């Protein structure tokens, strides 16, 4: 009975999500994340251009504003939200039919010239044994200063709780570069983020601490740097580095990123990370054999219609390249149908192998996800 409960809880909680943007739209729609999003890291609330893009790239259109424009807000206030759920088949290797409530979050952003106050509130998977106090939380809340408040470029500084800026920032948190890289699901924490954003170049520096207020997912404090350069309108190259330290280990990571728009309908992007994990020495652990990890993801996105995006991704993760048969590879197929300005249907699929079948059982899932943006 106890184990049966565990199975249901995990199924209900798994594949939750946060408000990441689609990096597939960078280069294919615009050059910078800030062209469409209020946050310099992308994701979350849309600006005026972002709303227009959401309408233009949906099949049925409709007013893209908050609640279809039926709830007018003053110019300084932006409201929004996301509701997501998924259902489908999972085989890892236990075969299951699953239903997954993923996200119910509302956002508010109040802008006063150069200063913006941003906060969200939403449901979360509660902590077992402390349910009453942990059903609702504010995953993000921060104060932002923007040097050029009427433009989408320039210097930004954020202080508060948010996800440190690192890598491709894919929306799909099961992507290895997120899960095993620096930004797993709910790794949002208190941080100071400085960014410089321009048409050709952008840089992000984030220092963060372990959240002292709640029981966390990520116990680390540290720093991340990320920079990208766009030599032309269809090419992007980037580099990244991080240090994450907990009581138990320190991770030193670095990586490279590339993105290229081929024609007008095909975008290819890739990220390769190398992580050295140093497990803290103790009388028991002599710190021999510290894991050296390799994490990679290549994603090709095809846009046959404005309202249709087909992603094919290849992932690779080796949890310790010093030991054989620890690597895993996956192929993802995600089909996004942007039904109207607010509604998205995603058919998401993965097949995953351990050392190409030699390292253990293979896994797979096939899920239909519904996303409604308020």
């Amino acid at each position: 009975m106890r184990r049966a409960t565990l199975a249901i809880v995990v199924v209900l909680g798994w594949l939750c999500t946060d408000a990441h943007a689609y990096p597939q739209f960078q280069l294919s729609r615009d050059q910078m994340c800030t062209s469409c999003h209020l946050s310099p890291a992308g994701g979350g609330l849309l600006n005026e251009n972002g709303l227009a893009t959401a309408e233009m790239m949906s099949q049925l259109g409709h007013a893209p504003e908050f609640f279809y424009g039926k709830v007018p807000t003053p110019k300084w206030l932006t409201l929004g939200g996301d509701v997501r759920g998924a259902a489908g088949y999972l085989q890892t290797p236990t075969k299951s039919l699953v239903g997954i409530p993923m996200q119910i979050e509302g956002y508010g952003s109040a802008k006063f010239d150069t200063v913006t106050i941003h906060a969200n509130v939403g449901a979360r998977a509660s902590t077992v044994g402390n349910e009453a106090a942990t059903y609702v939380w504010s995953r993000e809340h921060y104060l932002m200063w923007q040097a050029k408040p009427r433009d989408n470029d320039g210097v930004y500084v954020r202080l508060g709780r948010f996800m440190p800026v690192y890598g491709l920032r894919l929306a799909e948190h099961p992507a290895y570069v997120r899960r095993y890289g620096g930004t797993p699901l709910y790794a949002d924490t208190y941080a100071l983020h400085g960014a410089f954003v321009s048409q050709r170049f952008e840089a992000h520096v984030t220092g963060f601490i372990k959240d002292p207020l709640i029981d966390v997912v990520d116990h680390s404090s540290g720093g991340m740097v990320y920079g990208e350069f766009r030599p032309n309108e269809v090419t992007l190259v980037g580099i990244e580095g991080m240090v994450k330290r907990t009581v138990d280990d320190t991770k030193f990571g670095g990586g490279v990123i590339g993105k290229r728009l081929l024609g007008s309908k095909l975008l290819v992007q890739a990220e390769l990370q190398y992580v050295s994990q140093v497990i803290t020495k103790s009388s028991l652990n002599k710190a021999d054999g510290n894991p050296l990890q390799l994490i990679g993801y290549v994603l090709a996105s095809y846009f046959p219609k404005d309202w249709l995006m087909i992603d094919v991704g290849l992932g690779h993760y080796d949890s310790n390249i010093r030991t054989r048969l620890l690597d895993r590879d996956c192929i993802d197929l995600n089909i996004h149908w942007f039904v109207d300005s607010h509604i998205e249907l995603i058919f998401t699929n993965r097949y995953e192998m351990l050392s190409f079948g030699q390292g253990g059982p293979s896994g797979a899932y096939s899920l239909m996800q519904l996303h409604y943006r308020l």
Partner: protein
Amino acid sequence: MMRLAVAALVLAACGTAVDERPRNLDYITEAILAPSCGAAVCHSSFRQADGLVFDTVDNARNTFQNDPQLIGFDEGDPTKTPGLVLNLTIEQAGAPRMPYDQPLPDADVELIEDWLKHGAPGVCNGVRACLGNFTVGCTTARFFDKYTELGAYDLNDLKPANNCGAQNKVCMAGVCQ
């Protein structure tokens, strides 16, 4: 891109054939349990699914100490499979094989099994075996003496593991309790 992918695959095939990774709680937790089991909505401090937490060494130690059947062998049947290994290898009544979102490599499961066969060093802070009816008792603790070269125990605590006799007595630092 293709060259990077090929290079990654080549690197992945370069590991040693013999698994030389450490067998202690610190390593097992940080290299295997935390990234595979301690994820956001599973056995993290954030979620604590089923009351089990594997995202830090201290939390994993507390989990195992509170639920020793996860790691212990039945004193009357030293070959009995610990609950942790069962959870990681087979589908049980009403419960899926863990981790639920993606399989764990066989090599990681074997390393965990090997660690448990060595008395789960680290769970009891230098004590050779855990408290509880399902843990290694004094009669079987002798078996583990030969593994002391692994650095699993504080040598100052090692004393002859005499037969404790009565059931449910346990051996801590070589002394019957």
